[in-house]
């Protein structure tokens, strides 16, 4: 976690409404530390892009303060914020060459001709497009345009770089390649990045911390591993990675490390209480498919249930197995395609088991 003096951006009680009736962003508080890669992750309409636009200065907060480097930003126009931005569709100026695009932020800052040329070239080399300066954006491929947009947002050495779903238009392979490239640039240059995406694997790959948005509220702000392994509520568990959900009621709380949950089907499961209000309250159990064991040794796991294999989907590195278990017919188990893996048949009966700490009792 960031130390207090390292905070670069601070949102304090920020609210945003477009129509005066509903809040798009509800009471937002985040500290972003210098050099951090923070991702705002959420489904569309969750308020993540609005938050980014408020930081960039294209939207005004209805309430609350945004600070950058200790200075209140609310009334600073976008062009004086010194924030680089990469847009969803790159927004490269089509009537300028790549070099002219890159020179634009330097020219408006009235830098000398030779300095501009030198910095443009350096930025182009940085994204491995050294010889593409005279091309027009339309003559570049999607990935190249993306890199130019990146170079343009970095060339004037802004204190903060914002990225609004910059990889959304690329195909999967290129996207994954660019994810790593951006991550490496971030590490090399030590810049602070606020990144918006709705792609959870992208967020997990790149970020230092991820803020999961839903309904204008940050559901959880944590590191990728925390987010995946210790989701705080049902939404985060559902949104990040794959997740088996079992609905039930808390029957008994055994301290803070275990509880007994009665499922709607009547079966009882031992789980880790994370976000339950007390005995008798409804809860959603969250269980990652890869944490389920097939036919575990007798007595090794506290939760063991009979299940029936409904469907097998071959996915190369693993086999996605859909089972029916305790009243749910959408219980997924990932069987790694490792040497000597158990080969299941459709319709066969198996025993599935899991540990207490892998089964998190969350809000309903």
């Amino acid at each position, binding site marked *: 976690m960031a130390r207090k003096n390292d905070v670069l951006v601070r949102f304090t009680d920020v609210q945003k409404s477009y129509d005066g009736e509903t809040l798009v962003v509800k009471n937002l508080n985040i500290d972003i530390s210098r050099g951090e890669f923070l991702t705002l992750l959420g489904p569309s309409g969750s308020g993540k892009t609005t938050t980014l636009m408020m930081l*960039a*200065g*294209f939207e005004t907060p209805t309430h609350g303060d945004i600070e950058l480097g200790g200075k209140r930003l609310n009334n600073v*126009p*976008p*062009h*004086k*914020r*010194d*924030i*680089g*931005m990469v*847009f*969803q*569709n790159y*927004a*490269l*100026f*089509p*009537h300028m060459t790549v070099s002219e695009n890159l020179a*634009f*932020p330097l020219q*408006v*800052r009235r830098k000398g001709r030779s300095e501009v040329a030198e910095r443009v070239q350096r930025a182009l080399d940085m994204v491995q497009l050294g010889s593409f300066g005279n091309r027009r954006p339309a003559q570049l491929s999607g990935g190249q345009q993306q890199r130019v947009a990146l170079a*343009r*947002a970095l060339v*004037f050495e802004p204190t903060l770089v*914002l990225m609004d779903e910059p990889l959304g238009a690329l195909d999967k392979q290129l996207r994954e390649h660019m994810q790593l490239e951006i991550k490496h640039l971030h590490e090399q240059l030590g810049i602070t990045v606020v990144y918006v995406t709705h792609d959870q694997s992208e967020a997990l790959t790149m970020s230092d911390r991820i803020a999961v948005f839903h309904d204008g509220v940050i559901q959880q702000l944590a590191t990728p591993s925390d987010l995946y392994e210790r989701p705080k509520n049902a939404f985060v568990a559902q949104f990040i990675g794959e997740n088996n959900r079992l609905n039930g009621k808390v029957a008994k709380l055994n301290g803070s490390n275990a509880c007994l949950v009665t499922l709607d089907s009547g079966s009882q499961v031992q789980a880790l209480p994370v976000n339950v209000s007390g005995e008798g309250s409804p809860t959603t159990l969250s269980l990652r498919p890869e944490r389920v064991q097939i036919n575990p040794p007798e007595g090794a796991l506290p939760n063991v249930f009979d299940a029936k294999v409904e469907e097998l989907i071959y996915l190369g590195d693993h086999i996605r197995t859909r089972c029916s278990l305790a009243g749910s017919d959408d219980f997924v188990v990932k069987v790694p395609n490792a040497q000597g893996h158990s080969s299941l048949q459709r319709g066969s009966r198996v025993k599935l088991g899991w540990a207490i700490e892998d089964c998190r009792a969350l809000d309903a």
Partner: protein
Amino acid sequence: MAQATIDELQGLTTADGTPLRRALHRAERRAKIRAFLLVTPLLVFLAVTFIYPIAQMLWRSIYDDTIVTLLPNTVTAFKDWTDRDQLPPESVFAAFAVDMKQTREDRTIGQVATRVNFEEGGLRSIFTRTARHIDDAKNVTSWRDWFIQENPDWGKLNTWATIERLGHAYSILQYLAATDRQYDDHGNIVMAPEETQIYVPIFIRTLWMSLLVTLLTLLLGYPISYFLATLPIRTSNLLMIMVLLPFWTSLLVRTTSWIVILGKEGVLNDILVWLGLISDDGRIQMIYNQTGTLVAMTQILLPFMVLPLYSVMKTISPSYMRAAMSLGAPRFLAFWKVYAPNTLPGVGAGALLVFILSIGYYITPALVGGRTGQMISNFIAFHMQKSLNWGLAAALGGILLAGVLLLYALYNRLVGVEKLSLG
């Protein structure tokens, strides 16, 4: 799937050995024939109602056989006229007398007189007056003396030079007239005397006023289009209807409504008097002059500027402006450096459209232009309808057409027609 094989001599062939090019041609022929059949009715319609009349008018501007057919003997006799500094020889006068008698008999003398009069004002009366007496001329020894005696103008070199020039079916005479030029007595092309120069000043005025209208529509249309393009679609559609509303109103109604507004006793003057800005005697003349034409044309042609501008601006992503601002450009600089250059195809299309339309505008200047607000098309109409000098009208129209084509070519050269966006 037919496999193409490469034959060293014949190029690519399909699997059964047909040359690929021919196979492709055959496969596409049906589609081509169908496409052609679909456009045929329009093509025929255009050819009959548009291309043919234009071609005929242009033809008329360089071809006129009135004199050649009606004064055939004279035209032939002009071959004897070698010394152009002297009056034609007797043979020409004699042939002219024969032709004149014939035209009088055929009642075609009027046509001849009219045609000659177009070229040289005043010749009509000389022709008709002399023709009235030609049947009385008996035992004439020298037609030359008879004619000169009948009217001293027949002794002027210029009269005969005019008739001789008209004796060629193909000529550029109408184009000379349309550009205020003429032949002097020695056959050199010179400018007409200053007091008779009409068309060059009118062409210049037409170009100047069209340019002004184009600039005014751009000045008024650009902000409107920008505003429309940035509004949410529901609001912009409503406002677009208001921009288009004039389109659905008769041109005549729109023009005459300007008379009501701008007239000396009109709404605007009344308001100015009521506000005390001008006295009742000092009412401003805003119509029946260039101002009237400019105001009315600007209003009428504004949609032609707004539509292409709007359609281009609509496609410019708002993220360009945002990107420019995030890169450090203040709003106006961002607009000027990033937004405005991207609207150029729309500006070009709108300006070209408005300019070409206004260069040939007729009804509005005719109604509200008064004397000083007339444009070249009003003169073309005058020669078509009143003076019936179709040849001159055709030449004026031909120059206008050439001007427009030149402009189009220039635009194509500078901006590229493929970038033209008419919405």
